[in-house]
């Protein structure tokens, strides 16, 4: 059986490794448009960007690829899939498959021509991270467009490096999609206390000038001068090449609960590109986090080899910023109430649960990994809101 994996990044590499571990000894092909396997990305906006990590880590060394017996097809973009003939179409040829895994990930969202200007950075690849790190080393001021996790992490890194940061975010708080409005506002205040200039409810209209002397015009008419601009406004799944293939594409590859592409035989998706039916959350979701790609890889590998396991792990993401580690398990909904179960909103370290008063939707911790675990377990076990709050009242919270 010949298995082709499109995408030599986290999800693709881990799927290939798991396939071998599970005993697949037939041909295993890893395809990517880039001419090398990706590095591990989380440090690119964290330790590597701060200069703490000298080198990004390879996801797969040449030796590992060779010992796994992988056929690497790199530097050759896939341009389509022929489902009828079971072939991946490349710009310069075709690759037959018996089973196909789509691990093609996502691209950073661009802001039209704004992102083409010299001095305006994106942060996705190792090349991006090197350019941003070097630019920050020479900068006094950085404008960060987008106040999600990436923007907040870069603002923290800039602060540590003595670079004055301004964040522009159209939503009413930083990281509001991940944390919800209340916890988002709490973390926004913490960034502001460090001196980061956070502009909420506005976007960037235009950037003029040149590298080192950029002027950004905001939607509220204000202008911000900076040496460089980082655009971190989320990602879009890399599905352009799959249009017209017969696969259902709806903000990602539409999959069932086992990560199998809907209505199509022999195709699975993994990582950022998979929009799958989450049986526990009872919705079709797409998750762009590291742990999601890793854990899905193991399940997809089993399913490709004949199993049919549903993937129902609770989404998990961490973010290193403000000298601490934020951890989020589950999904905070916009209307959720928030209850601090360890520490308070005034403590550096805390654990909060969010939910609708009946169900717990998420557990959010700052600098409190161990304290977060029992609440995570309660969430995974489906404990009710009042049970979880009763638990927090029963243990004396103390200082984590």
């Amino acid at each position, binding site marked *: 059986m010949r298995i082709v994996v499109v995408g030599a990044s986290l999800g693709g590499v881990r799927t290939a490794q798991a396939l071998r571990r599970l005993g697949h000894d037939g041909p295993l092909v890893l395809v990517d448009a880039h001419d090398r396997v990706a590095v591990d990305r989380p440090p690119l906006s964290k330790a590597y960007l701060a200069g703490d990590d000298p080198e990004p880590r390879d996801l797969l060394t040449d030796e590992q690829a060779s010992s796994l017996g992988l056929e690497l097809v790199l530097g050759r973009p896939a341009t389509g899939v022929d489902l009828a003939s079971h072939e991946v179409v490349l710009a310069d040829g075709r690759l037959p498959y018996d089973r196909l895994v789509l691990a093609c990930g996502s691209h950073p969202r661009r802001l039209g021509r704004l992102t083409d200007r010299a001095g305006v950075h994106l942060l996705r690849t190792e090349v991006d991270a090197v350019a941003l790190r070097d630019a920050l080393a020479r900068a006094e001021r950085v404008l960060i467009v987008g106040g999600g996790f990436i923007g907040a992490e870069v603002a923290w890194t800039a602060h540590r490096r003595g670079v004055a940061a301004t964040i522009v975010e159209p939503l009413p708080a930083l990281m509001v999609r991940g944390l919800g409005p209340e916890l988002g506002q709490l973390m926004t205040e913490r960034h502001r206390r460090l001196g980061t200039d956070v502009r909420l409810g506005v976007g960037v209209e235009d950037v003029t000038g040149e590298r080192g002397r950029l002027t950004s015009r905001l939607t509220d008419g204000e202008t911000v001068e900076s040496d460089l601009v980082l655009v971190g406004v989320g990602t879009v799944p890399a599905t352009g090449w799959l249009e017209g293939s017969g696969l259902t594409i709806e903000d990602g590859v539409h999959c069932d609960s086992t990560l199998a592409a809907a209505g199509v035989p022999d195709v699975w998706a993994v990582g950022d590109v998979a929009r799958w039916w989450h049986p526990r959350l009872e919705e079709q979701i797409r998750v762009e986090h590291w742990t999601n790609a890793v854990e899905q890889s*193991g399940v997809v590998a089993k399913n490709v080899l004949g199993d049919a396991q549903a993937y129902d792990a609770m989404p998990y993401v961490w973010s290193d910023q403000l000298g601490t580690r934020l*951890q989020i398990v589950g999904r905070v909904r916009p209307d959720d109430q928030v209850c601090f179960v360890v520490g308070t909103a005034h403590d550096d370290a805390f654990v909060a649960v969010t939910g609708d008063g009946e169900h717990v939707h998420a557990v959010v911790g700052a600098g409190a990994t*161990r304290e977060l675990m029992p609440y995570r377990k309660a969430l995974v076990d489906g404990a009710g809101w009042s049970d979880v709050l009763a638990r927090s009242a029963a243990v004396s919270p103390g200082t984590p």
Partner: protein
Amino acid sequence: MRVRVDLNVCQGHGVCHMSAPEVYDLDPEDGHSIVMLDPVPPEHEDGAQLGVDSCPERAISVVSAAVGAANNAD
């Protein structure tokens, strides 16, 4: 199967414990991972492997039976 946590690399993310609480616990003092099952019995090998795979710092490795063991020291 035996797994080992490199405590110089472990940053206390706790993801291994989330993946397989029966195999990995967290040190009450510093939050570092502690391997609870050594060797890992066959029924928990999947979980142990998931812990290895899901460590953001790659602090956990599968070691040969001859090496193992010495990781439970706090």
